[in-house]
């Protein structure tokens, strides 16, 4: 669609540039802060490295030195919880989506659409509602501050999303292919695992990346369900900033580390979506 606005080209570029500056400046600020000394931060806003202040690598020395263990623990936990829970959510979500796309369910008054709605509706519930109870329940059964508890929580968090995305994908896979596989002697489970899932690969990848993204960016679940052993990167950062004079240079450096994985996820995701739109808006 080409709804060309008659705005002159210059105006359009100026508007985009203004928004671009607004969007990018905070990220630029974080990057240069990671190269400042405490003095450069508290003596007023210095904007240009080499002109205003001399870049220092003090923060990075700490990231790779004194604070390495803390940061590695947070980074490792974040990576572990996000990647494992995303994998579980995608696999379970794919099977459920397949079921919803291919079979007719009837549990009492609940049919397929109602079941989908029930599952998806969990995203409407603010996490705080569940998390106050989860905190108490996890504490009783000893799941507080445990990797298993966090992976469980994140899987729950992302499962509605993966079911939602994948149902649509499963519906688009032609039935004939399964029939062919059945004739070749594949059992139902093997049909799904060996034939349907590979065909749904783009959808699975998109669902995985989104799940990873949401777990990685989570703060409230980790804040309430971990203390020390299972702290994720956001919690490590929070602890660093809970001081009278936070070391913003160090926090910014860790922040840069925390931005990289979700950014890569989105860039890859963007490729997928672009391809989808190019293939004639596959809806």
């Amino acid at each position, binding site marked *: 669609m080409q709804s060309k606005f008659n705005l002159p080209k210059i105006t359009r570029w100026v508007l985009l540039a203004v928004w671009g500056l607004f969007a990018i400046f905070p990220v630029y600020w974080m990057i240069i802060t990671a190269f400042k000394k405490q003095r450069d931060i508290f003596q007023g806003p210095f904007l240009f490295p080499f002109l205003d202040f001399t870049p220092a690598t003090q923060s990075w020395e700490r990231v790779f030195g004194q604070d390495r263990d803390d940061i590695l623990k947070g980074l490792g936990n974040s990576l572990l919880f996000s990647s494992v829970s995303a994998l579980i959510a995608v696999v379970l979500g794919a099977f459920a989506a397949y079921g919803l796309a291919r079979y007719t369910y009837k549990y009492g008054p609940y049919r397929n659409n109602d079941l989908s709605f029930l599952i998806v509706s969990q995203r409407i519930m*603010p996490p705080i509602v569940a998390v106050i109870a989860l905190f108490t329940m996890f504490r009783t059964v000893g799941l507080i501050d445990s990797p298993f508890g966090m992976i469980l929580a994140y899987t729950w968090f992302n499962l509605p999303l993966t079911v939602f995305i994948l149902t649509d994908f499963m519906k688009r896979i032609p039935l004939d292919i399964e029939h062919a596989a059945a004739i070749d002697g594949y059992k139902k489970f093997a049909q799904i695992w060996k034939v349907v899932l590979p065909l749904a690969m783009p959808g699975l990848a998109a669902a995985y990346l989104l799940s990873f993204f949401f777990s990685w960016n989570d703060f409230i679940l980790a804040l309430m369900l971990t203390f020390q052993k299972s702290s994720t990167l956001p919690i490590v950062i929070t602890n660093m900033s809970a001081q009278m004079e936070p070391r913003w240079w160090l926090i910014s450096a860790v922040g840069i580390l925390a*931005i990289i994985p979700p950014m890569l996820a989105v860039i890859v995701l963007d490729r997928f979506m672009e391809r989808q739109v190019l293939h004639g*808006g596959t809806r």
Partner: protein
Amino acid sequence: MKHLLIAPPLLFFFAISVIPLLFTLGLSVTNTSIGGSGSFIGLNNYAQLFSDQFFLRGFLNTILYVVLGVTAQYWLGLGLALLVNSMVHGKRLIRLLILLPMMIPPLIVGFVWQTLLDSRYGPVAGLFTGLHLKPVPWLTDPTLGFVSIVIVDTWQWTPFMFLLLFTGLRTLPKEPFEAARVDGASSWRIFWDHTFPMLLPASIAAILLRSIESFKLFDIVFFITGGGPGGATNTLTLLGYFTSLRSGNLGYGAAMSIILLLTVVVLATLILIVVRRLMARADKAGQQALDQFLAEPLPVKVA
């Protein structure tokens, strides 16, 4: 076999949504504290909420954040989507740059903006001094603190609106626009007569998703103002956290979060009803598009 396929999500639904919800509901009628057990006190917690200034302020704030934030994000996102859509070159790069804020963990958004808005050494204060304006106490003034949160939320989530609306724009058919242009309609008229109505389904989806997410606002406020000064920027999630975990008053915090849940459900339903009414009056193209939207999942599935 088919029951086995759907079992895990349903199991999760019951184990980590329904049971905790009932559990929280149960907690909310007791005076349970984090250290020990509590006893049944009926609806006392709820009664107390309505005379709790902090709660009332947090409740009002939560709704205002949703209304103001989502409105700003929608119009800015729509404007950006139209601008980028009319570009010929460099779309992909510009799109990624626009999406940048959305990719950043909200917690990091929080601390970066905290330093940006700091009245002593932040660049925003520096800009004001440079323009010979009086420095503004962004984070320590109640009203400005509130405005700051809306600005930061808008900074982070306008990209989401942009993404959904931009994708919506690209799936629209070309013919009506070409016909209108041949007829000599102005860009302004083409936008209001064609683009806007045809984009309504995508707009509704975007607004609804954003509103639901906005009700959960937590991380940014936690970092930038911590709910202060004097509770002026609190949200219900933040209050629920502070009340239940920091002050250890689990029962009272549970009551707060139940009210939040009710508000979200009621308002989301209201938005849907109002939107359906509006759509019923809209032109036929829009109606068909809505039917199609309601029958099928969203064009872009970001929840």
